[in-house]
């Protein structure tokens, strides 16, 4: 069974207070080299058939319409 991975990140210009809180906690824990953290989401999508061109087109559409909000987020798609 084929798998595709969709990763969704807030656009760089969108404020990510959760990422900032994680960066600040990292430094508090002694990881002084951490300058910033951006938090995102990863979706592992299992497919009934192969990860062919039609599947890539379909999952791209899924990522655009449901998994991400193009107003604030961008996504990348790759084979799992």
């Amino acid at each position, binding site marked *: 069974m084929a798998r595709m991975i969709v990763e969704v990140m807030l656009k760089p210009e969108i404020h990510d*207070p959760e990422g900032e809180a994680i960066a600040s906690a990292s430094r508090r824990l002694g990881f002084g080299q951490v300058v910033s953290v951006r938090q995102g989401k990863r979706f592992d999508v299992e497919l009934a058939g192969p990860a062919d061109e039609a599947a890539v087109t379909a999952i791209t559409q899924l990522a655009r319409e449901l*998994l991400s*909000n193009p*107003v604030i987020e961008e996504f990348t798609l790759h084979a799992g």
Partner: protein
Amino acid sequence: MRIGVITFPGSLDDRDAARAVRLAGAEPVPLWHADRDLRGVDAVILPGGFSYGDYLRCGAIARFAPVMSELVPAARSGLPVLGICNGFQILCEAHLLPGALTRNAGLRFITRDVRLAVENNRTAWTGAYQPGERITVPLKSGQGAYAADPGTLADLQAAGRVVVRYADGNPNGSAGGIAGVCGAEGNVVGVMPHPEHAVSELTGPTADGLGFFASAVAAVAR
């Protein structure tokens, strides 16, 4: 005059919205997320809450509820629609309103009364207010920071589509202190604070929010 209130799984404020409709002199009509039926109502409210547990993104799943397949074309044809809090998030996800609601800048869930300036009283939901009028209603949200790209923000400002703005500081990091916006025609309005919780002085901080519902009653009567 019949105003529908949609209940999604996880809606919390549908009863308060229905009460606000009643106090404004209209008949509240319960609408169910799974029905492709608006029951012939004259206006629709999407109430606050945590539809579908806020899974994926706030409003992202509710946007695809069966009732939305009726609501979206009706809203595009001029039906007055008000989204409050989670309802605002749903209207943005459904592309009936521009922009998106993101996590509060301070990360905290905010529950307190806020002062708002009514900037646009030419919408179906704000005709009862004076331009610039200050009102006090509760804000209660964790993802209430309004975000949109600079071009959209400039367009909203130029077209007077910022309906309400936070008047005493910016509680959640919203772009431009925006607390509510409307669509191009003014029939679809989304607000992050809760006018339906401020409709009588017995149960709310003020009765300032009643104007939203009275405005819709007047708009439909015209």
